[in-house]
């Protein structure tokens, strides 16, 4: 059989795609499908075949108060980290985009937390939060206040984890905002200045709308990170005390590797994936309409 020129080109293209396709299939699509299947079965004991139970695993999960507590934690964590880190990132980007002495140094300083591995960052914050010798409590004591058990008190612990995450993420998002700010032509500011437009007014009428594509991108990333990044929990709290800082992915990990309940882990994973897909779709459809792409 001889290939036509067109056929050859098609084959060539397919071959170029093959390595990526194989990798994605092996490490993304196949595990996803396996997870969905797992979530529909109960494992058989002592070599018996797994039993198909349909959505029963989901019913059990939704009846589990711990799951709801963890889900609620994760929602609070997302609400606590996403708007704060984005606002902070934007503020820092605006600041270091202006004329100020030592601008390069400040930019680098803001970006440093991003370079640190999450585990290392968590270790640093472990020292900040330590009940007796910690930085915060030492400072409070010097000012005459009694210390707080930042990570041990169930009503404070989640807040402490959120603060650390914001510190870690804001610098990363700042880089995107900084890049976007630098692509805004300076003449726009000059044209607005000539009309006597105030800084605040210019920000809301020009800068912020022009940053919308970046904001959308950062928003999606922040959302995914809120569910995806749990490294710091291993160091800081291990989900405790009494699940006060447990987040969904960490709960998946616990189920899979501490309790060896792979089915529940698979079920939660599928729920997470669905929720993320719905939220991302909503964001793109609602915000995309108001977003100006250049």
């Amino acid at each position, binding site marked *: 059989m001889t290939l036509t020129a067109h056929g050859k080109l098609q084959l060539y293209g397919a071959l170029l795609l093959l390595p990526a396709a194989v990798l994605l299939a092996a490490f993304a699509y196949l595990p996803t499908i396996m997870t969905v299947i797992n979530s529909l079965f109960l494992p058989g004991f002592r070599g018996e075949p797994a039993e198909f139970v349909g959505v029963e695993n989901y019913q059990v999960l939704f009846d589990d108060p711990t799951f709801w507590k963890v889900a609620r934690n994760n929602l609070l964590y997302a609400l606590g980290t996403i708007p704060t880190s984005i606002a902070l990132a934007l503020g820092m980007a605006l600041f270091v985009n202006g004329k100020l002495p030592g601008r390069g140094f400040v930019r680098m300083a803001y970006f440093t937390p991003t370079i640190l591995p999450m585990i290392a960052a968590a270790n640093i914050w472990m020292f900040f939060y330590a009940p007796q010798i910690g930085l915060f409590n030492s400072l409070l004591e010097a000012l005459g206040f009694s210390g707080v058990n930042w990570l041990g008190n169930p009503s404070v612990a989640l807040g402490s984890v959120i603060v650390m995450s914001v510190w870690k993420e804001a610098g990363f998002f700042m880089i995107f905002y900084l890049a976007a700010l630098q692509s805004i032509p300076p003449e726009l500011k000059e*044209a607005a200045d*000539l009309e006597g437009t105030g800084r605040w007014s210019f920000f809301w009428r020009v800068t912020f709308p022009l940053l919308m594509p970046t904001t959308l991108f950062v928003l999606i990333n922040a959302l995914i990170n809120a569910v995806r990044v749990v490294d710091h929990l291993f160091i800081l709290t291990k989900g405790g005390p009494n699940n006060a800082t447990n987040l969904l992915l960490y709960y998946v990990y616990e189920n899979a590797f501490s309790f060896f309940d792979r089915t529940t882990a698979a079920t939660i994973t599928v729920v997470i994936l669905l929720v993320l897909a719905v939220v991302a779709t909503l964001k793109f459809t609602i915000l995309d309409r108001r977003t100006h792409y250049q």
Partner: protein
Amino acid sequence: MSCKCNTFNTSWINNNQQPVMSVMDQSRIRLERVTKRWDASPAVDGISFDVTPGQFVILLGPSGCGKSTTLRMIAGLEEASDGRIHIGDRDVTRLPPGDRGLSMVFQSYALFPHLSVADNIVFGLRSRKVPKAEQRERLAKVAELVDLTDHLNRKPAQLSGGQRQRVALARSVISEHPICLMDEPLSNLDARLRSDMRREIKALQSRLNMTVIYVTHDQVEAMSMGDRVILMQHGQIVQDGTPDELYNRPASAFAASFIGSPAMNLLPLVAGEHGAVIDSESDMPVAPLEAANGQLGIRPEDIELRPASASGVPAKVLSDEYLGADTIAHLVVGRHTLRIRLRGRHAITGQHCRIGWPASAAHLFGADGLRRDDLTAYSLMPTAPPESELPIGSSQAELRHFPLQSQR
């Protein structure tokens, strides 16, 4: 109309009657020894000029001559290192741009890409908290004026270059400031559109009686639009005059070479036996001996081409470029080349010839490049009858046409 400014503003936007005197005074611009230094060397070096209301003034010069910096200092986008800037009776040297009562059109148009044409135009009115109803009224009028009424809901990205340019113009017109600054507003347009926009801007300016300061490096724009041209070089004013003065009496060799297309021919002069002669062409004295070491300037259209047997400076035609209405021929004289413009078509490449020019068309520049009005170049016309004896109706152009043998 609640405030005074409204009354006369509307009057100057609608109409052709002369605006009230106080408006006229408000648009007088005066620069006194204005300097801008970034590092050691000044970008603008102590320049002074005075723009009267209603004037269309061109700041002309090559890139890096300081013309844009001058404009930006008038606008307040750049702070003057030294000197004073007055607008009307106010010293605005340290005022922020928004308080100077002027508008500006940028080279890049500086349109807000996320806003519709209408929102772009009324952007400044919103900043200045003009009531909504008045905004709409003024928008409708201005959109009509620049012919954008059908495009008000589009985004800038959906417009052509010429339309974007008009949005930028509309934005500065709607502000009703009597002064408009323009920074190379046409340089992003193609040649045909540029000539249309030249006329539109000029018409708009005279219709609204705006005071315009217009920066360009294009001498065609300067000649065709300006009431007055300020030519700059190295941060200083080389010449300040009407387009006619710049063309016919260039103040320096630089001014001579910058204006006109093709530019004026400049030939170095050296001392000869009977006066100054063209360097490396030592036969024919062309100017008094005092002119030696300076330069002789003659516009391409002022040079007359004659047969090799006639009198004049010997030359050889290197090439000819036929442009339709006329032909630009490149000639070699001694070691120098010069360009001449001939009416009609002439295929004369390679021929030997002689050239000449009337004394009135020859400009002399000293060794320092400045114009020398104390000397008059010699006429190289073949015993031309005095002007008064010319038969009525015969133009100089006709007299000048000794055709060479064209190899057509």
